């Protein structure tokens, strides 16, 4: 037991999880913004925008996240000299957030689109009938109702994002899965307790997200 507790003195477990939380927080914001724009494109009346939205979703939903994150470091930074921050380590953090956002935006887009499907067609027709053009109709009438219906799928995307933040290790971000590797490498005698600590860490972070989105989706659900 003492052996096990000494792990927490040697290794900054909480600090490593904090990096995952930061990654998740920023990627959630950016992927939500990008995903909403993509969803608007897909439901817009303009064929080229629909096409672009569909192409984006199909490309990034089907590309492994590891490949996207690795491209951030090996391609963007390594070959093209893209630098997103003065600070050396923050640069990798931002590249990873960029990768996570680009990937999850595809899923956010589809979650929102599934919410749009819960809005009766009459709502859109009514919005157009009172003279709103596409964007105001989407912003004032369709999206607010769509988001209510999309809370549960968006929650699933957020949970997936939280766990996928561990892929950032491929982009040189020192987060919990890095630390787990390091701990297993040097403390092979404690493999099972180490796995348990990291599994529990994610359960502790993810369960509240699940509870919150379930509660929200019930509270906001439209009884039809």
């Amino acid at each position: 037991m003492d052996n096990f507790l000494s792990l927490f003195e040697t290794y900054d477990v909480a600090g490593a999880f904090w990096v995952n939380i930061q990654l998740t927080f920023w990627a959630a914001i950016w992927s939500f913004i990008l995903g909403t724009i993509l969803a608007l494109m897909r439901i817009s009346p303009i064929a080229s925008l629909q096409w672009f939205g569909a192409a984006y979703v199909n490309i990034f939903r089907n590309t492994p996240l590891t490949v996207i994150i690795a491209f951030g470091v090996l391609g963007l930074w390594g070959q093209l000299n893209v630098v997103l921050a003065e600070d050396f380590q923050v640069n990798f953090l931002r590249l990873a957030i960029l990768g996570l956002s680009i990937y999850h935006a595809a899923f956010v887009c589809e979650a929102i689109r599934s919410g749009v499907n819960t809005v009766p067609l009459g709502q859109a027709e009514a919005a157009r009938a009172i003279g709103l053009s596409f964007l105001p109709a989407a912003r004032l009438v369709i999206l607010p109702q769509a988001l209510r219906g999309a809370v549960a799928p968006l929650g699933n995307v957020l949970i997936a994002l939280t766990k996928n933040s561990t892929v950032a290790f491929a982009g040189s971000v020192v987060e919990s899965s890095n630390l787990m590797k390091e701990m297993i490498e040097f403390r092979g005698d404690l493999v099972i307790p180490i796995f348990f600590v990291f599994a529990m860490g994610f359960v502790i972070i993810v369960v509240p997200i699940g509870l919150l989105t379930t509660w929200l989706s019930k509270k906001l659900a439209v009884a039809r």
Partner: protein
Amino acid sequence: MRKPRYAVAAMAAAAALTLSACGGGDEASDDTGSEAASDSIRIGIKFDQPGLGFDEGGEYSGFDVDVAKYVAAELGYEEDQIEFVEAPSANRENLLSTGEVDMIFATYSITDERKETVDFAGPYFVAGQDLLVRADDEEITGPEALTGKNLCSVAGSTSAARINEEFGADANLVEQPGYAECVSLMGGGQIDAVTTDDIILAGLASQEANAGNFKVVGNPFSEENYGVGLPKGSDMCEDINAAIVQMIDDGAWEDAIMANTEGADYSYNEELNPPEPDACA
């Protein structure tokens, strides 16, 4: 129609191998006259470390592999009785304690923590942490010269962090999933040095694609005793140590190192090598 037949044949062969590996253990060692205790031996190696343990489409090469073959031969196993199994760092203790492999030759440093779960024979080589730099780099001569430089190592190893902590250098650390990525970044110009054990670096530098581009600095600053991982309570330690001593004495050890680091401008640390195996516990 040919391909499916091959596939069936391959599957049958694989199934047969698996079955024989499971069942053949007990009744094998009788009339062949060899001292082998079973039909085959399963040895864990790295598959992704050129120069040490490397899988080239089913052909295994490297120093670890050469030592493993020599030791297996001394234990009475023909080369076709050896089955090489991939042993990634994080999985080495598990492979041994579940009996998936009989022994591990995979840049496995002997440490007190690891001795809690596994036994070690050897060491068969003493490596030291060193730096790989571009062949024309005269500036980086050791860990102290790394301030402000970009340094790459593999995620989850402490070798990169050690440079800042122990040598007071203020290097920028880049952690990648594997050394191949580090070397590719160094080729692209963003990384000034890659750090890990010298013999691993030499193996990387002597790869065909990299030959002549990189060099090992040759200023090792740690001591890693590569041992043979064995299941706890194994009785093979004495025999393996005897085989290692013999390999060193008859020159095969030296030849194996030279052959696997060719073109990397590498010489091992002669103060610590060749090592004398520790007494078996």
